[in-house]
């Protein structure tokens, strides 16, 4: 019991409850002193949630190092956590591998929560008419599915960037370990606040939260805004850390064009999250202020403009989709050469295409607004810039097929997920241009076609590569291999059923199925399609569950795998698994190209003291 109470997470949650109570009490007290009606839920709960999050960070110990510095105390460079065992995963750790796994587990938890929300409203959609959900509940689940999945994805990419980037470039940790721990831990109260909206009236706006609707939604709306704003700090600080680490801490000889390709992807994605995330925070906080203090930013009766919100919102939220997919595409480029036993075709082009996508991604936001009523002439330049994204994306696809061409391809579980990623992302990519040309988009906008399109890009660009990466680096994290049979079973459950579901979404979208509706007109004849999609959704969920069972089982019972299981050239596989506490006991030097598979006698890295 004492051990349990000393866990950082438990202390953090206790402090969060305390902080929330203090915040609510403070606002109520001030109102009472000002002789206003003492209890007003919205300001009290918002302020309480904010203070609760800050108290959590103190309670969990995420600011201990900085407080000590402020008090003039020294902190050790390396903290020895080896005596803590599994308990170090439940408190503030400064080890990037521990933080990476913390991110990974939290991401999987949120993925289960967000996925369950989807199953709930997907079941409701299997029949026309409302079955068991109220309209407001439906909208709340639908909205939370979106934002919880987005936060889960942000945590998932942070997991692999944290775990892999230092290992791949030969650093012993991230550039700013305390900031790194802070970035992770702020996501925890953010997630709690986000989910609390479910119990505070929910919200009916979707994850986009467009005013004026969001200015009138229930109190849950504010928890959504606050949760996302806090989670944004995680992205911003995480991005900063990755950029500093990649620029400053590479091993000797690792020139920019000798970095593993995933590091390029992490860099490109971090540049976006460092510079764009502020805009979604800003747009959400403006609506919060509109609701709390009556500032009329988006209220036409006070001279505000609702369309302005959409510009601010999409200025982040479009580049954000590249934040989600660039690391996944990097993982595909990273793993294909290993399983095809061939160099990555056109390494430099692939690396540059990530940066090109990140750059062009900043100039396309208003393609989400072709029907919004913004200045009409703006639609044309945004159509041009959007179509341009196809060029660097095309380079990636061509390079991937050229990589497998004349390879010696084997089909272990990670490779299966990678290949599904390529094909599903292709479906997502090819369904994109009809949304880019304005006149066709005027039909497709806000329909299930869009829903199918972006689920394909998210599964192809994130979910499949993410599962590939878990199966691939599982031995590195645990010293054991995840079970192949269960892995393949999981794959064959997820990939076909998901693909069918997304194609059906596009099909009924073209025929007139709108997005975000709790019920649909039976006259349209969509009911059989919806039933099929619901079945597919459940098969996908069972597949994910099989993988979860596999991971839990294999941590303890999996086949021991301490060596270079995949016969990879990457430095982290040249040392035994699981990874030692401070990474490489002997520093390495880069002496060759990263992906020279098939070139006899070549190697990528040479460890100090190795024989020639």
């Amino acid at each position: 019991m004492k051990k349990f109470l000393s866990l950082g997470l438990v202390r953090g949650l206790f402090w969060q409850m305390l902080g929330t109570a203090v915040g609510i009490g403070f606002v109520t007290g001030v109102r009472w002193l000002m002789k206003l009606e003492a209890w007003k839920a919205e300001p009290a709960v918002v302020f309480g949630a904010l203070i609760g999050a800050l108290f959590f960070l103190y309670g969990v110990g995420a600011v201990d190092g900085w407080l000590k510095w402020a008090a003039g105390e020294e902190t050790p460079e390396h903290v020895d956590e080896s005596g803590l065992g599994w308990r170090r995963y439940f408190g503030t750790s400064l080890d990037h591998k521990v933080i990476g796994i913390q991110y990974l587990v939290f991401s999987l938890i949120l993925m289960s929560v967000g996925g369950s929300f989807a199953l709930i409203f997907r079941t409701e959609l299997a029949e026309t008419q409302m079955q068991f959900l109220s309209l407001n509940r439906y909208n709340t689940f639908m909205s939370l599915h979106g934002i919880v999945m987005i936060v889960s994805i942000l945590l998932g990419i942070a997991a692999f960037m944290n775990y892999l980037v230092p290992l791949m470039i030969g650093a012993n940790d991230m550039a700013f370990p305390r900031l790194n721990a802070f970035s992770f831990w702020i996501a925890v109260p953010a997630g709690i606040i986000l989910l609390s909206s479910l119990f505070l009236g929910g919200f009916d706006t979707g994850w986009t939260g467009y005013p004026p609707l969001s200015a009138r939604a229930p109190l849950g709306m504010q928890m959504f805004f606050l949760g996302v704003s806090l989670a944004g700090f995680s992205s911003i600080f995480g991005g900063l850390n990755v950029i500093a680490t990649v620029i400053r801490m590479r091993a000797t000889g690792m020139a920019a064009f000798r970095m593993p390709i995933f590091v390029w992807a992490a860099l490109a994605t971090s540049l976006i999250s460092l510079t764009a995330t502020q805009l979604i925070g800003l747009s959400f906080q403006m609506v919060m202020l509109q609701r709390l203090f009556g500032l009329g930013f988006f209220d036409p009766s006070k001279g505000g403009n609702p369309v302005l919100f959409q510009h601010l919102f999409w200025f982040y939220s479009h580049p954000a989709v590249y934040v989600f997919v660039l690391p996944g595409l990097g993982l595909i480029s990273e793993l294909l050469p290993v399983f095809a036993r061939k160099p990555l075709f056109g390494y430099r082009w692939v690396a540059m295409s990530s940066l090109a996508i990140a750059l062009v991604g900043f100039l396309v936001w208003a393609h989400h607004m072709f029907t919004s009523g913004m200045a009409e002439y703006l639609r044309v330049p945004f159509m041009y810039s959007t179509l341009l994204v196809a060029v660097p994306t095309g380079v990636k696809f061509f390079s991937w097929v050229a990589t497998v061409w004349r390879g010696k391809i084997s089909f272990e579980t990670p490779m299966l997920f990678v290949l599904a990623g390529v094909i599903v992302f292709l479906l997502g990519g090819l369904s994109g241009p009809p949304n880019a040309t304005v006149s066709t988009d005027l039909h497709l906008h806000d329909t299930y076609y869009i829903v199918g399109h972006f689920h394909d890009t998210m599964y192809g660009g994130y979910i499949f590569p993410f599962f590939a990466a878990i199966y691939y680096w599982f031995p590195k994290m645990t010293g054991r291999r995840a079970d192949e049979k269960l892995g393949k079973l999981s794959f064959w459950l997820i990939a076909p059923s998901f693909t069918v579901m997304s194609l059906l979404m596009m099909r009924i979208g073209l025929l007139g199925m709108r997005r975000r509706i709790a019920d649909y007109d039976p006259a349209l004849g969509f009911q059989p399609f919806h039933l099929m999609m619901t079945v597919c959704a459940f098969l996908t969920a069972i597949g994910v569950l099989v993988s979860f069972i596999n991971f839990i089982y294999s941590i303890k019972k999996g086949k021991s795998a301490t060596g270079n299981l995949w016969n990879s050239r990457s430095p982290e596989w040249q040392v035994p698994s699981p990874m030692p506490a401070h990474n490489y006991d002997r520093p390495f030097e880069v002496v060759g190209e990263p992906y020279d598979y098939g070139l006899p006698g070549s190697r990528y890295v040479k460890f100090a003291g190795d024989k020639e």
Partner: protein
Amino acid sequence: MKHIPIVALIILLGTLGVHTGLTSIGLLPVQASLQAVEVDRLLNVHLWLISFLFSLIVGILLYSLVVFRRRKGETGDGAHIEGNNTLEVFWTMIPLFAVIFLAYIGAASLGETRRIDPTALQVRVIAGQWYWRYQYPEYGISTSDLVLPIGRQVDLQMTSNDVIHSFWVPEFRLKQDLVPGQTTELRITPSLIGEYKVRCAELCGTSHAYMEGLVSVVSQEDFDAWVQTQQQSGEIDPVLRGQQLVAQFGCGACHSIDGTEKTGPTWQGLFGSQVPLTDGSTILADREYLVSSIVNPNLHIVDGYSPNVMPSFAEILDQTEVESIAAYIETLK
């Protein structure tokens, strides 16, 4: 290099197969406007590109997975090919040209769908949670169904009364948001007689799914006849007219007629009573008060209720309509 001709054949057959498959299953609802023809034409160009690119990538990929798979007992690596800059330049330039081509025909297609006919029928569209409403200024009528004559362009001037909505008739293809505080425009030339539904496409709150309305495309004669009946019904009893308007605009969501407490004050027994206001004074609920409460709701706030909740209907209802609603309220004893 016996691989190349086989792959080329797979890609060719794949392209034709995918395109035939996609177009034969009936991808779209019927075309009921001239603009739909333009949209569908551009979509067909996209379908060809999609069929080709899908077959290209998946064709090569699947071929490689089968032919270049690792056989049982085989060890060693694949061919050591690092890349080929000529190829890279080639497959950067070809998509670039395809993109420029799409950009050109995309802009041309947008221009066609936005072509303006100066003789277009003017209709003002007002949306709110959760209703559609139309005014025909040429004929002085306002309705809750949209009736359009075939073959004549209609110029929809649209605004919203509360949150953002979006006007979409799938058979017409085009879609345009309705934004509070501004007027947006959508031009459609109906080309097929029939009954369709406008479906709100922008999430507008809990009952978004049910925000649908009837859209009829009729012959010119039927349209003229319909206009005439509508004009006559405008002369009906103002109390009845008021009751219709109240139902159309969903006033009952906030105002009860039986004394039930809702977001706004009840209408029961309102007329002729002394209404207490937030500033401590009272006001007599006469016709003038009722009218001013509809067109300028923030002028007098009833004690116990909040300002800025009810939108103004000054832009949405004309003078007779406001008077009709007031006349209806006066009957609620």
